[in-house]
């Protein structure tokens, strides 16, 4: 599972190392402590912080990399994922926004076939705060703690986690699944990861209109009798049907995808659904305080 795969010292490569954002993000990840061992790019960059290879295969053969962060143009994401999978990479984090959905269908089929974990596309990445960051989750919102966070939207999750961190509540693991409809990892896929993790006390879900990730998550909570408290914030109550709101997946169609449908499903599964960021932060803080209090009583 992803939690076992993502270890602080795991060797990571960056596909698209020499692009503007590839260069910037590599520097930031290195600064955070992520063990980036190499990059892949069709061209050289004398100033690159890590060795640059022409192909994934070469990079992996030389460095033993297990994970890759893909920072390439939208129409190249599929071929980059294929290259990573062929080279033996076990975890691919595709940051790029704008990957065509038919490409995502192909990528999903090929990573499943190969048993590779794929996060994204269109994700700010994932992090175990204080240890490793794959992607660009902002430092100001990251702190070690006991909240398991899963989010569709980057910016909204930054805001939510920033407020929680300012209340002293950090994250055990934060995974941005991305705002695309067809993606490598969905909310429900992450539930067992958090269920098995002793370091996770509660789950924060940052969802939004479109797709059925939230409904599927609700069903999985019920099916697996998931027992940790879950809190959700759902954006897009005032979106209009038939208008895409920024994310490729953020679209209410005639057949569902509204906040109301998602909130109903999640509430039926025992999830605390909040309408406002402040309300979510307060609810989570109160619940964690109760949990801590109970644990202290039990150990006393």
């Amino acid at each position, binding site marked *: 599972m992803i939690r076992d795969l993502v270890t602080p010292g795991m060797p990571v490569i960056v596909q698209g190392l020499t692009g503007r954002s590839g260069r910037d993000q590599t520097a930031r990840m290195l600064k955070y402590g992520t063990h980036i061992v190499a990059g892949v790019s069709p061209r050289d960059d004398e100033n690159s912080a890590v060795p640059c290879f022409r192909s994934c295969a070469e990079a992996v053969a030389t460095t033993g990399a297990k994970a890759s962060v893909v920072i390439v143009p939208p129409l190249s994401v599929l071929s980059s994922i294929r290259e990573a999978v062929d080279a033996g990479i076990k975890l691919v984090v595709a940051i790029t926004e704008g990957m065509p959905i038919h490409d995502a269908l192909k990528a999903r089929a090929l990573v499943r076939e190969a048993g590779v974990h794929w996060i994204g596309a269109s994700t700010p990445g994932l992090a175990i705060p204080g240890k490793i960051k794959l992607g660009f989750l902002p430092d100001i919102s990251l702190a070690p703690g006991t909240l398991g966070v899963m989010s569709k939207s980057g910016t909204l999750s930054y805001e939510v986690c920033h407020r929680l961190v300012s209340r002293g509540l950090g994250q055990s693991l934060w995974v941005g699944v991305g705002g695309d409809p*067809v993606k490598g990892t969905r909310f429900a896929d992450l539930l067992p990861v958090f269920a098995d993790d002793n370091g996770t006390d509660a789950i924060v879900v940052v969802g939004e209109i479109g797709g059925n990730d939230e409904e599927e998550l609700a069903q999985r909570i019920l099916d697996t009798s998931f027992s940790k408290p879950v809190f959700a914030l759902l954006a897009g109550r*005032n979106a209009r049907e038939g*208008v895409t709101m*920024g994310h490729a997946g953020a679209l209410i169609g005639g057949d569902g995808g509204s906040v109301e449908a998602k909130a109903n499903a999640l509430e039926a599964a025992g999830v605390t659904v909040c309408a406002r960021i402040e309300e979510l932060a307060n609810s989570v803080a109160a619940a964690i305080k109760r949990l801590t209090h109970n644990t202290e009583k039990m150990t006393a």
Partner: protein
Amino acid sequence: MMLLEHHAKELLGRSGFPVPEGILVTSARSAVRTVALPAIVKAQVPVGGRGKAGGIVSVKTETELDAALAGVMDMTIKGHKVRACRIEASVDYSAECYLSLSVDADAGGVRVVMSADGGVDIENPVVRENILSQVVAADLTHVDAAISALSAELPSTLHSALAEAGHDVARQFFALEALLIEINPLFVRKDGSWIAGDAKLVIDENALPRQDGLRALIEENAALYPEAALKMEHGFDFVVLDPDGDIGLVTTGAGLSMQLIDELVARGHRPFNFCDIRTGGFKGDPARLIQVFRWIVEGRNVRSILMNFFAGMTDLGELAKLMLVAMDGVPEMTRIPVTARMIGNGLAEARAVFAAAGSPIAIETDLESAIARATARARPFS
């Protein structure tokens, strides 16, 4: 995004899929009426449920056509102002069937759905129980096999029509990189021939860079696809939500921008717009900010502007400089107070930039405080 029925039918028709003769009119007084009567006047909006909303009217005479056109062109359906109507020739048929292909995001494949009973009956629970459906791998071979298998389960009078129509739709589905093609109803005639009663085509905006035909369609019909055309031209999202809205938003990040709108509505305000300006695409140029400012000052009731920049990557000092240049470029901005929530890299520089320029922009680092300030400023003078 969903194409208008007229364009969906044009695209399908061009590849040989039979569709009724029809024309698009954008005004109730349009002179060109080449469609033979009886006909159907159909509102062209990118949502379902047009029939229930009264946006589809059958007409037998010129007088009825005029009245129907005037009525439908005046409608707003699910928040979408009717900007065009398709006038379509009525067709004879003996059966109304259902056919659709869609991306199943959950299963990661293509869902093929067929039913001998289509039209509005597709909502009927009894009909729904008999719907044939299969999810298969997202390639033409598997989808074609599913179409053959499903259509074989239909009554013999419909079998070959649904199979042939299905294979046609499948080719278009992959060629256009569609997310949904739904033909409901698919009219089947006594002789086994068929024709599309309605056509719903949802395309993938992410695929537009390599879908030349679809890109051209949106460019040529920019007035009918304002959001998509805007995104193609400018590279970011801006949606007018409420032309009478009181607060203009200059924000980055789709999720946080949507949530901000929800937070404002919960406080009784009416945000003018949704915006995901994508600061990452500025590259030192104030053009995007200028464009967004121009659109916002067009809002006749906008009395306050709220900006929100949670800078993960953006340098706020640089952003502040661009904001000043952009404000100078749009003189009308001086009449609207601006509250800027900024947090992240370069906050101190941003403060210094505004102070040095004597700018009246108020910086808040906390979003709740920024919302409070911006909403207080939007209150009407009493």
